[in-house]
């Protein structure tokens, strides 16, 4: 992996080749590896290294973009020729875009662990072996993946911006399957040495053994306890559907400033500076990512911004840009739902008749403005009877408004789990919800 100086030097060479106007160069280098296992054997085992360089060129109100992955020959001239060619054919924008200036904020630490950056295929195989060993000793079969990734993002621009940070991630996911049922567990973090493979394997095995020979139940509206795996998915969807300033500006967001949306116990923040939220110091424009309170005690409190949406509202960017230019707008990617006070067992104890859901699967937005999503339960859905986990039930489809569900919160656990998804991380507790609609 290249150092900050080396990647910024690549960016500098591209900037030096820009003939006129403002320009921004983003250099991303990634080294990742993933060991995948099925039925207690490793069946896919891969690694990749790649270098991506992106140039955004703005001149005379016109923007052109070129991105190259892997092609290192004549990189500066290749990028500048392509981006400037695109720029010349772009009609001038009504409001000429400007690249951000350096915000002079000090870099917050990024989530990084040298042990993860140095992880070997033998180390990943050993972790997988420990999980598979636990499963096979119980006559069960383990499936899953162990992934380690190191990446560096560097940004430099003609406006004087020069930033670089490196981050690591280790993800362990496992499904343990028995004759007629399965259990799930995952762990995510920056440091592979902090991963407890045994605990992960035992959790999945325990759920699997309790989730055998499930019976079908009729769909309907149930009181539920959702494990953090399921809660994280809901919060990530809220972000996608309405925490962005662009969604509000275009009339697509469920968020109405100052309005009570959810139960008073619900507070959601985005904080890319928090050590427990897999921090990273700046966004894809090189703007410092600042903490934003999105929902405070159930009331809509704020939105995340990139430079264009901030300019429209006359405020400063909060540092939540995706690669520019784009039509998707900013995105909250380091989310946390505030913890409660009880344990997960306390939440279950508060339910007389209901369901416990380990995780959701194949969740999709059905109606964004009403925050309706659908999906299936998977690998661990149980009855709750008189405050105790009961027999397993067959997986169910739910179709439910997230905001409506969060309007009936009866309990929030104090323990939270960090989940990594396609669009960032969510730190989520377990939730006791009074109403949740299962539809088939």
């Amino acid at each position, binding site marked *: 992996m290249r150092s900050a100086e080396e990647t910024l030097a690549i960016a500098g060479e591209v900037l030096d080749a820009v003939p006129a106007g403002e320009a921004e160069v983003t250099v991303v280098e990634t080294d990742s*590896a993933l060991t995948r296992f*099925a039925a*207690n*054997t*490793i*069946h*896919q*085992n*891969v*690694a*990749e*290294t*790649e270098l991506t360089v992106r140039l955004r060129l703005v001149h005379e109100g016109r*923007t*052109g*973009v070129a*991105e*190259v992955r*892997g*092609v*290192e020959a004549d990189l500066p001239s*290749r990028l500048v020729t*392509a981006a400037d060619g*695109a*720029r010349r054919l*772009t*009609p001038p924008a009504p409001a000429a875009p400007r690249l951000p200036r350096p915000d002079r904020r000090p870099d917050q630490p990024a989530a990084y662990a040298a042990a993860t950056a140095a992880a*070997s*295929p*033998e180390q*990943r*195989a050993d972790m997988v072996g420990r999980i598979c060993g636990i499963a096979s000793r119980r006559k069960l079969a383990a*499936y*899953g993946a162990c*992934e380690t990734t190191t990446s560096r993002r560097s940004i430099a621009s003609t406006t004087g911006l020069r930033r670089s940070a490196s981050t690591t991630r280790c993800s362990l*996911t*496992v*499904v343990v*399957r028995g004759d007629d049922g399965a259990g799930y567990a995952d762990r995510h973090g920056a440091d592979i040495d902090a991963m407890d493979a045994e605990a992960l394997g035992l959790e999945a095995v325990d759920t699997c053994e309790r989730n055998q020979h499930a019976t079908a139940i009729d769909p309907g509206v149930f009181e539920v306890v959702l494990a953090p795996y399921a809660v994280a998915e809901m919060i990530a969807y809220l972000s996608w559907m309405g925490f962005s300033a662009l969604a509000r500006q*275009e009339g*697509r967001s469920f968020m109405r400033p100052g309005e009570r949306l959810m139960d008073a116990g619900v507070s959601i923040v985005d904080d890319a500076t928090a050590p427990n939220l897999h921090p990273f110091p700046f966004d894809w424009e090189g703007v410092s990512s600042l903490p934003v309170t999105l929902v405070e005690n159930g009331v809509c409190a704020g939105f995340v911004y990139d430079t264009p949406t901030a300019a429209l509202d006359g405020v400063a960017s909060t540092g939540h840009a995706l690669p520019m*230019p*784009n*039509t998707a707008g900013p995105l909250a990617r380091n989310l946390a739902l505030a913890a409660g006070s009880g344990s997960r067992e306390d939440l279950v104890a508060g339910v007389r008749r209901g369901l416990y859901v380990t995780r959701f*699967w*194949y969740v*999709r*937005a*059905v*109606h964004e*403005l009403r925050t*309706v999503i*659908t*999906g*299936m339960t*998977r690998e661990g859905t149980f009855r709750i009877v008189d405050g105790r986990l009961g027999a397993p039930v067959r997986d169910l*489809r739910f*179709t439910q408004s997230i905001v409506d569900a969060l309007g009936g919160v009866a309990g929030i656990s104090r323990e939270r789990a960090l989940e990594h998804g396609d669009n960032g991380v969510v730190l989520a507790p377990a939730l006791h919800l009074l109403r949740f609609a299962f*539809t*088939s």
Partner: protein
Amino acid sequence: MRELAERALDTATAAGATYADCRIVNRRIQMVSAKNGSIARIELYEDEGLGVRVIAGGSWGFAACSRLDGAGVDASAARAVRIARAGARLNSVPVRLAPVAPVTAEYRTPVGRDPFSVPLDEKVALLLAVDAGMARVAPVAVREASLEVSEEHRLFVSSEGSRIDQTIVESGAGFDAIATSADEVQTRSYPNSFGRHQLCAGWEAIEEMRLAENAERIAEEAAMLLTAEPCPVGMMTVILDGTQAALQVHESCGHPTELDRVFGSEAAFAGTSFLTPELVGSFRYGSEAVTITADATTPGGLGTFGWDDEGVPAQRTVLVDQGVFRGYMSSRETAALLDGASSGAMRADGWSRIPLIRMTNVNLLPGTSSLEEMIATTEEGVYLETNRSWSIDDRRLNFQFGTQNGWLIRGGKRAGLVRNPLYRGVTPDFWRSCDAVAGPAEWQMWGVVNCGKGQPGQLMHVGHGAAPCRFQRVSVGPA
């Protein structure tokens, strides 16, 4: 490039690999998008690298890098072998591959007009004309139009002696009109949702979409949906347009007939399949109106090529024949587990990912009906157009789809637009209720450009030939 690929094989076999293949892929993409009256982005993307896949110690290893020189190749080949040996610690059964004849060959997508030869200003003018058409409809607050053209060169070499050069060209485009009111947001897309419709073809594919000619009509539908009646609730007849039929085939037939899912390779992520091997040849998957093939030779399909990414020739496989489940899409490894031959469905998302069993063109073959005949012979039901949401369980049985709009059918006639329609079902029950598929005149290839699978994630472009089709006694309701 061929020398580098050969060097990768030599390095891997010298390090102990008993099998090796190497793919060098170069891809260039041109993306143009317009939003609300101006060009939002013109972006040129280029991508090049190599992936080395080996069997060593009886296990798979794969390493990819974007550094195309001797040092990069040697490092990747050695890394792949080391990874394979690490994995072999846990594996007691060595990987076995179904045989395939080595070949030296070339393939190129037939193209009418090279999409990269079309001037960028022509592309800009097209998207701005589409935008202007949508802008004539007042409640449409957000207008987006985009196009994308790509060309991918793939070199495949294997230690068994195959040397295959392929060039795949794709062209795609589409637009979205988003209408808003105080309490509703409605989107209409054309020709398909989620950005665009795409084919393995040249610029002629985009011209045939007649984007500008349809812009105002689609925007008007988005506006009408704001105040349309909610979709009715109940068990009723459902007619799907070609785009939704294509996605229904994709989710409920394409994925469950991927043989790696059956053997558990995706059990921890994408899931498994209800179509287990003992059901081949006897299981009633659908009605007699339902015949579905996986056909990598269909002209224009996004799953059309000369050879797959294991060097297996493109071919046509019958998945469902007149309702009876007949077979799978497979790889050399999974086919060997059934003592068969690969169906040629191994495809990789670029150079940095391993090939997985992916759909090629999974086609619902045309029937003998027509959309108008289906509507005319429906007493009460809905005609559903353009996907809005999709979800299905991990065995591919319990599904729920939403579409952007629906047309209420009463007494054999369209009786008005309805909003937020959903339909749900269980795969074999649903396909057994299919009583009509439109004929060749309404059958066309559709492209899905966002098919996700695998860890690390891969996005694949796959094709689906489909026509409007009708289903009886389906559970329908509003979102």
